[in-house]
């Protein structure tokens, strides 16, 4: 028996980065896609102070579809992880 389970450690780091940094990055990508289009561009060129505008949806159809895909992938990933944890987390009792 070793003091440190290296397999578990690297799994936690790698999957931690994928889920913990990758999924929010995907969400950010979704926000970016959502912001594409004329509406956000107009507020910017009109010289409105950026800090005051909280317009999020740019109006580009492609952008909105891409954003929807990104958000759905994130929800699916969360749902799948919860299911995995449930199945892994109920081991048969030790004899």
């Amino acid at each position: 028996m070793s003091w440190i389970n290296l397999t578990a450690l690297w799994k936690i780091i790698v999957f931690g980065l994928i889920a913990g940094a990758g999924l929010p990055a995907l969400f950010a990508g979704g926000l970016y896609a959502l912001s594409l289009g004329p509406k956000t561009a107009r507020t910017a060129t009109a010289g409105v102070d950026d800090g005051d505008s909280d317009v999020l949806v740019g109006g580009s159809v492609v952008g909105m579809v891409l954003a929807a895909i990104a958000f759905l992938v994130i929800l699916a990933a969360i749902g799948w992880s919860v299911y995995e944890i449930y199945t892994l987390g109920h081991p048969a009792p030790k004899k």
Partner: protein
Amino acid sequence: MSNDTVLVLVVITALAFDFTNGFHDTGNAMATSIATGALPPRVAVAISGVLNFVGAFLSLAVAATIASGLVATGDVTLTVVAAGLAGGIIWNLLTWLFGIPSSSSHALIGGVIGSTMAAAGGSAVLWHGLVSKVVLPAVLSPVIAALVAACGTWLLYRITRSLTEGGRRHGFRIGQIGSACVVSLAHGTNDAQKTMGVITLALIANGTLTAGSNAPVWVIVCCALAISIGTYLGGWRVIRTLGKGLVEIESPQGMAAESASAAVILLSSTFGYSLSTTHVATGSIIGTGLGKKGADVRWSVAGRMATAWVFTLPSAAIVGAISYGIAYGVGGTFGVILVLILLAALSGFIYWRSRATKVDHNNVNSEWTGGVSPDKVPVETAAA
């Protein structure tokens, strides 16, 4: 040895611990959402409470570690468990009084180890299990969480750099709520199991269950309830330290921190590591400060926390050992009852002390002025 009166008392004390665990740790999930204004404080704690309840049913891996991986179950009596719980609760309440987000898990584990050592000597502690499943994860998990959160923060700002400031804040507030919910779920999964493990340990000690058993369903339900009620009441003092004291947080950082915490906690629970959600959440918040240019981490606050972390295991162990000494000295059922009366009295005293510098949902977000108690005039900031 079978003694049902003591068993009932131990179960009640364990649930009381679970309750303190809930309110000590609400901040881990919700502090950043409350600090950035993504959620109103009371809504935040209500959502967190419900998700903690659900999370408690997800996994039993950590409960198994606590029930059979840390102390030799043969040497554990109900008195040992009761004294250990007393150690855990007292340390939890003291750190809450000072607004320090210390680890509830370490308080619990420390308490049980202290009382076991007092009862049966050092050989009854499974040192290998303690180091490999508790101490090392405690050291590594905040570092991993900080790394993940720093990467996440950097990516989020990079990807959304063309968005308007307001649009970004708005979008990430929504994301932050989602990620905070997953952290609450993870907290229920990881932390409620610790109490399940202890109650299982008590049932084994009493002969009600055989060694190596899983937690029975009624134990899971009671623990889920206790932790979710505790969470709902909200440990505003700790929320304040985490949300305002460490780093001034914007919503993208909040989302990065919470996603990192959720991922690390859920992955570790799956491997049966009883790591501290508190350590992970703190690591993430510091990481998110490191990942953004120009963000300041208040290292003095971080240092104070780290000190409390180091002391948590041994201090709770000492309180656990003293409690065992009292119970053993008096002897029998009355000894256990006396310890629990002392525990209740001390808890009441700490609660009374906390009223003097009250932190609640009204002033939780007041400007940080160097301590957990907001200054006398937080009115405008609290209303905002």
